[in-house]
């Protein structure tokens, strides 16, 4: 029978099937962080259950960490306690932890791929919905709740019903200034925030084939924003070249053997999907969101649609935007370049390339937050930090930061923030804050201009 990429990886990990029920799926790698793991550790402790496979778990501190003065004790008492709890839990259970300040510390979905922990054909989970990021490697990777974190601790398995399959194909050549972020914002704007619920999504077509691993991670990262538990892209030479030589990647003959296996994973010609969508790359332009879910996106040159639905109106009221109006020239005081969606070296290269020789607008507070210590080092080594500093920007230290504003990086009430993160929900970046999702290029241009501009006119 013809199989999809998803089928091949899923089927290879099924331990058993419950009669008339879910399947037991084996999990190769379990990533954990400080926010969604403590209650799972408590659960195991209360029930006197040991962690089954500690060597398949990797921990990092990212959600609740400051992005300034990381060498000092964390000021906020609750955050400090939560971080200390993670360290204690990892130490008690022999789990590898890249804590604050460690050279491998970073956002869980940035550090695992860059260390070669993420590999094609694996199953990976984390108590974080953006675990879908790792699907860029042809990995089944998805977010889980804390009860499931405890289940994986206890058994290295999960009880799951196999999701349905969805394929989104984008063919053609992307226009100048259209980045992977625009591609996924465009797809979500067309399909809506729940089109993928119950499905695992494969992204196919030459747009993704020609994308870097960083770009593929940006795309897969936001699969959850259309409801899909995960997204996947078939592993190819770009994938193998990225994985090769990384700290925890297989070496030498092992690597070659793995590559031979990984080459068998792409979807068979003629395999069928439960749902398929096709888009043309030429239709995609730089995108911005205008509402309070990631599906409420438009091309930067378009106007906000008109819709009488009460939830739609509530959303525009929150954003203080009017239906039928354009976002161009909207004054913006806050810009955030970071998050597990867009905090990799490529994102900072794009921003630096635009910013070079320009100045940050005086009204703008801009936070540039690398996804990991390694990205931070790369930014410095490539001279990007000098470009940012010369233009009046400050580079902060790694973490989730203003994407969810659990730390001090909060956008004030009623302020707009053009953000490279993944969610524009009400209050996501701070109580009463208003988020406009965009690519690193649009974010950089906004920071320089102090308002939203039609970037397409500036590039042509």
């Amino acid at each position, binding site marked *: 029978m013809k199989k999809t990429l998803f089928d091949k990886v899923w089927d*290879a990990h099924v331990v058993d099937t419950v009669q008339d*029920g879910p399947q037991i799926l084996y999990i190769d790698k379990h990533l954990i962080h400080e926010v*969604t793991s403590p209650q799972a550790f408590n659960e195991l402790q209360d029930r006197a259950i040991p962690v089954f496979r500690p060597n398949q778990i990797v921990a990092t501190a990212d959600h609740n960490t400051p992005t300034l003065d990381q060498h000092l004790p964390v000021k906020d008492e609750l955050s400090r306690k939560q971080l200390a709890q993670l360290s204690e839990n990892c130490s008690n259970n022999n789990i590898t932890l890249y804590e604050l300040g460690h050279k491998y510390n970073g956002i869980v979905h940035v550090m695992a791929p860059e260390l070669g922990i993420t590999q094609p054909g694996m199953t990976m989970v984390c108590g974080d919905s953006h675990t879908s990021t790792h699907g860029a490697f042809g990995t089944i990777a998805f*977010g889980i709740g804390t009860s*499931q974190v405890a289940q994986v601790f206890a058994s290295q*398995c999960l009880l799951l019903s196999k*999701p349905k399959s969805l394929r989104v194909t984008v063919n053609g050549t992307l226009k100048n200034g259209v980045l992977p972020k625009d591609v996924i914002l465009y797809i979500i704007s067309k399909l809506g925030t*729940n089109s993928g619920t119950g499905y695992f999504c494969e992204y196919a077509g030459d747009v993704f084939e020609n994308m870097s691993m960083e770009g593929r991670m940006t795309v897969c990262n936001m699969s959850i924003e259309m409801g899909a538990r995960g997204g996947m892209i078939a592993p190819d030479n770009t994938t193998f070249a990225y994985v090769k030589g990384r700290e925890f990647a297989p070496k030498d003959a092992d690597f070659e053997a793995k590559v031979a296996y990984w080459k068998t994973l792409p979807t068979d010609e003629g395999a069928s999907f439960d749902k398929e969508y096709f888009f043309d790359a030429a239709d995609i332009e730089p995108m911005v969101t205008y509402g309070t879910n990631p599906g409420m996106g438009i091309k930067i040159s378009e106007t906000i649609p008109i819709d009488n639905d009460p939830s739609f109106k509530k959303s525009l009221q929150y954003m203080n935007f009017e239906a039928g109006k354009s976002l161009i020239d909207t004054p913006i005081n806050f810009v955030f370049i970071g998050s597990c969606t867009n905090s990799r070296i490529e994102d900072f290269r794009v921003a630096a390339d635009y910013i070079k020789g320009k100045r940050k607008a005086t009204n703008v507070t801009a936070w540039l937050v690398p996804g990991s210590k390694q990205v931070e080092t790369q930014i410095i080594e490539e001279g990007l930090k000098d470009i940012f500093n010369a233009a009046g920007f400050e580079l902060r230290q790694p973490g989730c930061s203003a994407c969810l504003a*659990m730390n001090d990086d909060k956008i004030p009430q009623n302020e707009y923030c053009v953000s490279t993160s993944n969610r524009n929900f*009400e209050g996501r970046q701070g109580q009463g804050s208003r988020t406009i999702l965009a690519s690193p290029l649009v974010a950089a241009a906004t920071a320089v201009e102090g308002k939203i501009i039609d970037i397409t006119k500036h590039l042509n």
Partner: protein
Amino acid sequence: MEKFSTLTSQAVPLNIANVDTDQIIPARFLKATDKKGFGDNVFRDWRFDKLGNPNSEFTLNNPVYSGSILIAGDNFGCGSSREHAAWALVGYGFKVIVSSFFADIFKGNALNNGLLPVQVSEGFLEQLFAAIESDATTQFEVNLETQTISIKDTDLNEGFEIDAYKKTCMINGYDDIDYLLSKKELIEAFELQKNY
């Protein structure tokens, strides 16, 4: 986990689509290391203003609505995987959430905490909202054994789907850890012979 079989209760209407888990429990409350106290902050930024004063327009602050059933708009629980959202709803006192569509991760988290997600058709959801609108004291019955939800004192009812395994877990108060631990030998055997 608490057992669940049937529930008869009034309901609280929340007729908003795409309620995300950031609204159910904002990120700034996720610093706790236990499961307690989240109910106090459920829908925090809709329930209270920045100074902590109750927002009288929000459904949970409307004294005519009460009960342990929340009836919500389409695509409930989208966004972040935070199980804190389920803990917050359970902590507040909800036992059932009704919607025409649930986000995957939230649905799983709810089931793992004895909070029953009842998915109904859009048409029936409208009828539920209409019933509360005409009389806020309307009683609703949710029966997990027969997989039905009905509006009391009317002949309006609808069936709902639930995975047979999860149904057994809810009725008996079992959780997945018990089941997975009972399969440890199979899991160890799988590890020895996995071929990828």
